[in-house]
């Protein structure tokens, strides 16, 4: 059993140092993000790790049978029509070069849809009834801009600025005791959906390098302790204080979870292996039993304006291989009953292909939801290619309906978090 707070003794001074205004930090993070993305709305980088600092108290005790949400973010705007392929002639008319040949499709019995051949590894869970797809998802007032649309999806707030993410608000609403940075973990990049006002999250962009290494001849323990000491007491300057606060959180996270990132020889230029490693890491983190309730996994590259056939095939193959490895691992570890996994992407793509062998930004998209509570073996929502919105698939399911079902499953207060009561459409069993 791991000693949870092994390193934190030296950083004890950090606890209680609550003078640092979180507002200043939220502003800093927001502005820095705006500077780099020019996105005018919500925070688009990692979670604001808070005002209240890391603590020396024992972690919040969590009930047995802890539920874990795994949120897979497919950045770039996944082309839903080629992922969940409709049996409509209009689809083939609109996509003379991009339509998936019928002979390659993975037919989903009793539906009007098939899976992209690269998603074949997921068919096992479809057949078991623990995989569902949702068609026509989006959020009203989302945009064809990547950044504005991602902001809308991350915040769950349409047409207005929000400084928190939908899962960050859940973390805050269900926070008991001191915030625990391992309650929410973002793998493979920042996770703005986790941005909160009071809670903590751990962002691990490059798991294989998530270690505190020292050079030969160094007293590692002494140097790590000294590194922790630079974090306390917190400086009066809020900017410096924020840089200090990242240190104890990091040392603790490395101590507790770097063991699951054992593949140190991994070459991160191999995106397929990298994606699979993120999913395997997520499964291992769940098995550590550290009270982690939300894990986000960031995968990128879905902005297929050109050369879509091969690019999307590779991306979806990496994704399905990763998800299958994850599912098999949590089944073997006995955690399959605790986990819901869902994919998101900021928009679907235009119905008609462009001249570059790709598709431009569109509206309604497709998502997949997996887990024991899923009403699986079904495509929820609807697709009507005879009635488009400005050349795009219409948004017929407000994504916040899906958020609502997931939050209900995690244990609300859902409507408060989403600032409204969204219809549950039955993707998850009530």
């Amino acid at each position, binding site marked *: 059993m791991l000693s949870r707070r092994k390193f934190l003794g030296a950083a004890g001074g950090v606890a209680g140092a609550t003078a640092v205004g979180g507002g200043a930090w939220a502003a800093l993070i927001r502005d820095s*993000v705006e500077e780099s*993305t020019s996105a005018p709305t919500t925070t688009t980088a990692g979670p604001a790790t808070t005002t209240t600092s890391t603590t020396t108290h024992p972690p919040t005790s969590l009930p047995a049978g802890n539920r874990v949400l795994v949120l897979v973010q497919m950045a770039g705007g996944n082309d839903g029509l080629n992922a969940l392929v409709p049996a409509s002639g209009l689809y083939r008319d609109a996509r003379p070069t991009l339509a998936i040949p019928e002979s390659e499709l993975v037919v989903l019995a009793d539906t009007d849809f098939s899976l992209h051949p690269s998603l074949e590894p997921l068919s096992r869970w479809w057949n078991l009834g623990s995989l569902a797809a949702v068609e026509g998802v989006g959020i009203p007032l989302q945009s064809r801009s990547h950044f504005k649309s991602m902001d809308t999806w991350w915040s769950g707030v349409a047409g207005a600025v929000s400084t928190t993410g939908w899962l960050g608000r859940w973390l805050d609403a269900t926070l008991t005791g001191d915030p625990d940075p391992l309650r929410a973990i973002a793998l493979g990049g920042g996770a703005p959906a986790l941005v909160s006002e009071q809670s903590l999250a751990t962002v691990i962009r490059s798991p294989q390098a998530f270690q505190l290494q020292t050079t030969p001849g160094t007293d590692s323990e002494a140097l790590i302790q000294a590194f922790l000491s630079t974090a306390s007491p917190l400086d009066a300057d809020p900017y*410096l204080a924020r840089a200090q606060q990242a240190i104890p959180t990091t040392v603790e996270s490395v101590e507790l979870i770097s063991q699951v990132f054992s593949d140190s020889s991994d070459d991160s230029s191999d995106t397929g292996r990298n994606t699979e490693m993120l999913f395997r890491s997520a499964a291992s983190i769940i098995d550590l039993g550290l009270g982690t309730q939300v894990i986000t996994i960031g995968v990128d590259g879905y902005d297929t304006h050109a050369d879509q056939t091969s690019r999307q095939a590779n991306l979806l193959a990496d994704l399905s291989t990763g998800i299958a490895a994850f599912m098999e691992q949590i089944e073997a570890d006995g955690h399959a009953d605790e986990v819901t996994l869902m994919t998101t992407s900021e928009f679907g793509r235009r119905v008609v292909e462009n001249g570059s062998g*790709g598709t431009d930004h569109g509206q309604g998209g497709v998502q997949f939801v997996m887990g024991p509570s899923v009403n699986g073996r079904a495509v929820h929502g609807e697709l009507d290619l005879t009635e488009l919105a400005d050349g795009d698939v219409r948004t017929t399911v407000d994504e916040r309906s899906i958020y609502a079902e997931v939050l209900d499953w995690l244990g609300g207060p859902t409507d408060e978090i989403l600032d409204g009561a969204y219809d549950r459409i039955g993707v998850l069993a009530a």
Partner: protein
Amino acid sequence: MDTRSEIAWLARRAGWGLAPGELDDLTAQGTTSVLDGMTSPDLNGVTASVSPWADFVFIRDPDNAGEQGLEALSLWLENLATTQRPFEDALSWFWHDHFAVSASVVKDLHTMIQHLDLLRTESMGNFREMVRKVTVDAAMLVFLDGATSTGASPNENYGRELQELYTLGIGNYTEQDVRAAAIALTGYVVRRRDGWKVQFVRNRHDDTPQTFLGVSGVHDVDTVVDAALDHPAVPGFIAAKMARFFLGDVSSAVIDDLAALFSAESLEIRPLARAILEAGVAGESSPVVLAPLPWLVQAVKATGADIEPQLAVTILRHMGQMPGQPPNVAGYPGAAAWLSSSTTALRFSASGVLAGRTPEGAPTLQAAAESRWDDLADLLVRPEGFSQSTIDALSDLSQSAGLRPGESHLALALASPDLLIA
């Protein structure tokens, strides 16, 4: 701020650090003279601008692509650590972040290098001309699919980002403007078999006059660029982005003044950049979190650490900031990413490597070995000294903690929160 602090501020924000002795020399020159040298190097006797890849022998051979890429990156990093024109490099980096063209999409090293050279050449020139050149630059045509956009089937990727990310910002254009720009910009191809040469092919172009951003008769690159750059949102959008890059949180009054200046100067970048640095020297700035590349460059400059290219690349990749490969079209992420657990862990590990590679007799290593913390901070371009927490941590760490005297202390100083903030 006294002169030494002003120079140190300029060096941290706009020059990515200094080598030992340089802070003394520059302080003796005075702030105005240093600003002149930074913003108008040609008029102030600074060594002429040279591309980091001036002597690079490019061979288009797939078997050697990895090696060539590493060599090119190595030349880039070496230039950053030794440049006589640090502000030109910092601005070139700002533009690389702004246009965010990635070698992983362009997939041709020579084309990518030409793009980066274009950004360097234009870094303090006229923004309108820069956008015009970037629009038909081979790397950009490949990056945002202009090279496959035809009149029969226009690709909207560049037409959108030109407005959203490069010139106007969201809210200043409509979906109709995106389509109009896409149509008017059709017809360019990149001839991969002919050295990736850019060519305009008339029968791939739709010359139908479009109404774009309220301007009628827009039909080609020049008319698109002029309509976009004539838009009143441009000066404020660019001035705000550049000001926040160098100054951090800054008041809207300062941004308004900078935008007015940029507009009055017909979108000339040099006076805008100069005014931004002057505002910072006058105290109009907040602390900023250093991204991995400037953090690494300042450490290499101050320590003289001998880091082989492969190691530097590994550090930067895992810290999340590969030069030439912004993660997406919005460029590199902001402060929160650099405060993440991942980047913090890597910063610690990399600091140990940097200290271990610092040559014997280096002033930073000596100061660390002799527990001269104020001198060490000054050598690391923090003449105001370290924070009390860092001083205490340095003082409490045993001198026997490292292989050589001072080595662990130097590592700790490099990893400290103080060095992450500029």
